C-alpha cells in the first residue's frame, strides 16, 4: 500500500474505533457486535438525514430553480422547516392498503427497497474513518445489494394488485437487467486499474498524482484516467436508480406512479426514502470508484464525500428537469444494443492498455 494514503492504509474501521473509544472492545464478541451496531446506526442515520433533507426540501428547491419558481419558503429560513411539516403530514396520513394486495409481499416491498440501499453504504469509505466494513469483494457486494432493490420494485408492483403497479414493476425488472450488466462491466474496468475489489484500495489507487501542473498535483481519479468509462457508468447508473431520462418504472405521465401507485403514508415514505437512498448510493459508488472517494483539499474528507454525492444528486435533478423520457422499448434498446456493447469495448480496451503499461 502507498504511504501517501494514511487513512486507507490504516485499516481501522468505524466499529473498531467506536469499540476502542467506548471500551466496548474489551467485552469480546458481544462488545464488537454492539460497537458495530452503533457504527451502523451512525452511518445509517447520516444517510437517512441526507435523504430527509433531499426529499422534502432540496429536491423542491433545486427543481424550482430550474423552472423559474420559488418553491417552499414559508416555514423557517428558505422553507427548510418544511421537512418537519412534511414528516408530520406524511406519517399522520392513513395507510390505505388495497383490498387485492398480496399482504406479506406488499408490506415487505418498501422495506426491501429502502433497506437494500442502506446495506450498500456499509462498504463505502466516507473519509475520516467513517467506513463500516472493508471486505475484499467490496465492489461486488455493493452492486449485489443495490441489485436487491429490483426485487423490491417487483414485489411492490406485483403485490399492489394494480395494473399500473404491475406494469411499473415489470418495467423496473426489464430495465435493471438491461442496465446492471453494463454498470458492473464498466465498474470492472476500474478494477483492472486498481487491481482490487476492495473499496479502500480502489480509493487509495486514485490518490496518486496523474500529472502535476504548476506544482498542483492532479490526482489520478478514474474519471480523469478513463472519462469514457465514467460517462458510461453515469448513464447506466441513472437507469439503475430510475431517474430521467430513464424513469420508466414510475413514469408519472404514463403509469401514474408505477410500482408505488398504491402506497400511502408510512409505506410511501419508505419507498420514497428508498429511491433517494438509491440515488445517494449511486452517487457514493461513483464517488468511490471514479472521483477519488472522500479525497479533497482543505476541507475534511467526510465533507468532500458529502459534496461529491450531492453533486451527483444535483445532476440527477438537473436531468429530471431538462431531459425527456425515452420510451420503454427505446430504453431497452439503448441498454442492450448500446451500453452493453460499449461497456465491453471499454473493458477490453482498458484490459489491453493496463496490460501494455504493466
Amino acid at each position, binding site marked *: 500500500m502507498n504511504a501517501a494514503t494514511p487513512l486507507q492504509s490504516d485499516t481501522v474501521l468505524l466499529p473498531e474505533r467506536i469499540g476502542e473509544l467506548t471500551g466496548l472492545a474489551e467485552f469480546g464478541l458481544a462488545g464488537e457486535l454492539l460497537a458495530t451496531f452503533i457504527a451502523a446506526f451512525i452511518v445509517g442515520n447520516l444517510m437517512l438525514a441526507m435523504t430527509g433533507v433531499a426529499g422534502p426540501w432540496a429536491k423542491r428547491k433545486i427543481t424550482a430553480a430550474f*423552472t423559474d419558481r420559488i418553491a417552499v419558503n414559508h416555514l423557517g429560513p428558505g422553507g427548510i422547516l418544511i421537512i418537519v411539516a412534511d414528516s408530520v403530514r406524511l406519517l399522520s396520513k392513513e395507510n390505505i392498503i388495497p383490498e387485492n394486495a398480496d399482504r406479506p409481499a406488499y408490506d415487505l416491498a418498501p422495506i426491501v427497497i429502502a433497506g437494500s440501499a442502506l446495506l450498500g453504504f456499509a462498504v463505502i469509505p466516507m473519509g475520516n474513518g467513517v467506513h463500516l466494513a472493508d471486505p475484499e469483494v467490496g465492489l461486488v457486494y455493493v452492486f449485489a445489494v443495490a441489485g436487491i432493490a429490483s426485487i423490491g420494485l417487483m414485489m411492490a408492483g406485483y403485490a399492489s394488485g394494480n395494473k399500473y403497479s404491475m406494469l411499473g414493476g415489470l418495467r423496473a425488472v426489464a430495465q435493471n437487467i438491461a442496465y446492471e450488466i453494463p454498470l458492473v462491466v464498466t465498474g470492472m474496468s476500474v478494477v483492472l486499474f486498481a487491481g482490487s475489489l476492495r473499496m479502500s484500495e480502489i480509493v487509495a489507487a486514485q490518490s496518486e498524482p496523474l500529472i502535476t501542473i504548476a506544482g498542483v498535483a492532479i490526482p489520478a481519479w478514474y474519471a480523469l484516467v478513463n472519462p469514457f468509462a465514467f460517462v458510461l457508468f453515469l448513464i447506466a447508473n441513472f437507469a439503475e436508480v430510475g431517474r430521467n431520462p430513464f424513469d420508466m418504472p414510475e413514469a408519472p405521465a404514463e403509469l401514474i406512479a408505477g410500482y408505488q401507485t398504491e402506497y400511502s403514508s408510512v409505506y410511501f415514505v419508505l419507498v420514497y426514502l428508498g429511491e433517494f437512498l438509491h440515488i445517494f448510493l449511486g452517487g457514493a459508488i461513483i464517488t468511490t470508484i471514479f472521483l477519488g472517494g472522500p479525497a479533497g483539499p482543505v476541507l475534511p474528507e467526510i465533507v468532500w464525500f458529502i459534496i461529491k454525492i450531492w453533486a451527483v444528486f444535483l445532476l440527477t435533478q438537473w436531468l429530471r428537469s431538462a431531459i425527456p423520457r425515452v420510451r420503454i422499448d427505446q430504453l431497452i434498446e439503448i441498454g442492450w444494443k448500446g451500453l452493453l456493447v460499449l461497456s465491453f469495448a471499454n473493458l477490453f480496451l482498458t484490459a489491453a492498455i493496463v496490460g501494455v503499461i504493466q
Partner: protein
Amino acid sequence: MSTGIEQTPADGETLTEDELEALIGDRAIARDDHMNAPGFVVNPDEVQSVLSDLKERAGYDHLSSVTAQEYEDRYESIYHLKKYADASDEVSVVVPTASDDPVSESAEPVFRTADWHEREAYDLVGIEYADHPDLRRILLPETWQGHPLSKGYDQEKPQVVTLSEHANPLESDHRESGGESDTMFLNIGPHHPATHGVLHVETVLDGETVVDVEPDIGYLHRCEEQMCQQGTYRHQIMPYPDRWDYVSSGLLNEWSYARAIEDLADIEVPEYAQVIRTMGAELCRIASHMLALGTFALDVYGEFTAIFQYTFRDREVVQDILEDLTGQRMMFNYFRVGGVAWDLPEPREEFFEKTRDFLDELPAKVAEYNDMVTSNEIFQTRCIDTGVLEPEVAKDYGCTGPVARGSGVDYDLRRDDPYGYYENLDWDVVTRDGCDNYARVLTRMEEVEESAKIIQQCLDLLEDWPEDDREVQANVPRTLKPDADAETYRAVEAAKGELGIYIRSDGTDKPGRFKIRSPCFSNLQALGEMAEGEYIPDLVASLGSLDIVLGEVDR
C-alpha cells in the same frame, strides 16, 4: 343533366347548385336551404347513397357536424358538409324522420366521423341510426332515462341510478384481442395525470402495446347547448362560449357564436371592432398554443419540467394583456353581438407598448423552445413517426386545426372562409406533412409566430385609426328576433380547429336549436387510429398532441 353525374369532377372544380340538384336527383324530396348552404331533404333510407355521391363525385369530403333536433311533427338530422379544399363551399343534407319511429340510416360507412356525432344525436335527441356500428350513449351515463333535448323529455324526473346498475369499469378485465397472445384491459382515467381533464380511455394492452383504444367521454358534460337554448340572443348566450375551451381560448369561442348570430340576424360589425376582435383572438391562440406545448412536454418528459413552467411564464404575459383588454383572465365575455364590449384600455399607448414588448420578445422565446424541446434528440426519437395520422384518415375523422394541418391538410377557416379582418392582413397558413406528433408540435409553434404577425399588423392599424371613427359596436336592437325557421351553421378557426355553431331560430328571442360543433370532439375520435399498435407512452403523447380540452369535448 349529364354533367357531374357520370364523372367525378376534377380537383377544385365546383358543382353549381343545379348540378348538385341533378346529382342528388329524385332522392331529394324537397329543398330546405339554410342561410349558409343549400339544403337537400332526403329520405332516411338514402342517407348513405346521397352522402357518398356528394363525397365521391362532388368533393364534399368534410362532414363538419351532425345536428339533430325534434320538431312538433318530426325529427331531423342535418349533415353539414364542406370541402377541405374550399371551406366556403357548403351543402346541408337534411334527413327528416317520423316522430313515432325516428330511425335513419347511419352516415358512418361514408364518414367515420359520423360515428360519434350520431351517437350524440341519439343520446341527446333520440334519433336512432340504422347500420351504425356502435349506437350507445356518448355524453350521458348509459343508464340515463330519456333524451334531454327531445320534446317529451321530463326535466323534473329524477335520474336515480344505483351504482350497481352502472357498468363496472373493473369487471371486464379480460378481453379477447383476436390474436394468440393474452391481453390486459386497462382503464386510463378518468383520474390519470395524462388525460388533460376527465377523460376515460378504455385501453386493451398486449404487453405494453396498445391493441384497442376507446375514449369514454361525457364526464364534463354541462348541457351547454341546452343552456344556450334558454338564453336570449342579445346578451345571455355570449358568456357561455368562454366555458367550452376554457384554457385561454375564450375570445375564439365567443367569435363562433358572434359569427353565427350576426349572420342570422344580418348584423354588420364595424371594421374597428373587427380589428380588435382579430387581435384578441390571435392573443388567445398564442396563449392556447403555449399551453398545448407545455402540457405536451409534460406528457413526453414525464416530469414536471422546465418546459412546462417556461411556457406558463410566457403565457402569463399574454394573459395579462388579455386581462387589460377584457377585464378578465379566463371568462372574458368581451365580444358582443355586433362588436366588442369596449374600446382598448386607456391609456392606449401603454397597452400598445405592453403588447409590442411581448411581440418583440416572442422570437427569442420561440428560439429557446426550439433549442430546448424540438431539437432535443430524445424528444425527436419520442415524437417522430409516433402517433401517425395520415391525411386521408384525418379527413375521414373530420379533424381540423393544427391536428389536420400537421398531417398536411391545408385547411384554415381564417383563410378559406374569411371572417373578421384576416383577409386584409398578411400571414400564412402553416402546414406540415410529418403526420406525426412532432409535426403537430411544430405546427403549433409556427402558428404562434404567424399569430404574432397578425397581432403586429392589428396593432399598427389600431394605433393609426382615426379617433372619431372608433366604433366598437354596431347598432343592434335590444331584443333580437331572427325570422322564424331561419337556420345557419357558421364556423370559425378556434385554437383547436373548426368551432362551428348551428342556430335555428323559432321566431322568439331564444334559439330553437343551438348546436356546437367542437373541434376537440372530432379530433379526439382519431385517437384510436393514432395509438393502436403503438406503446402506452405513444398513446399518451398522441393524446397530448391532439391538444383536447374536455370542456369542449363534452360541452
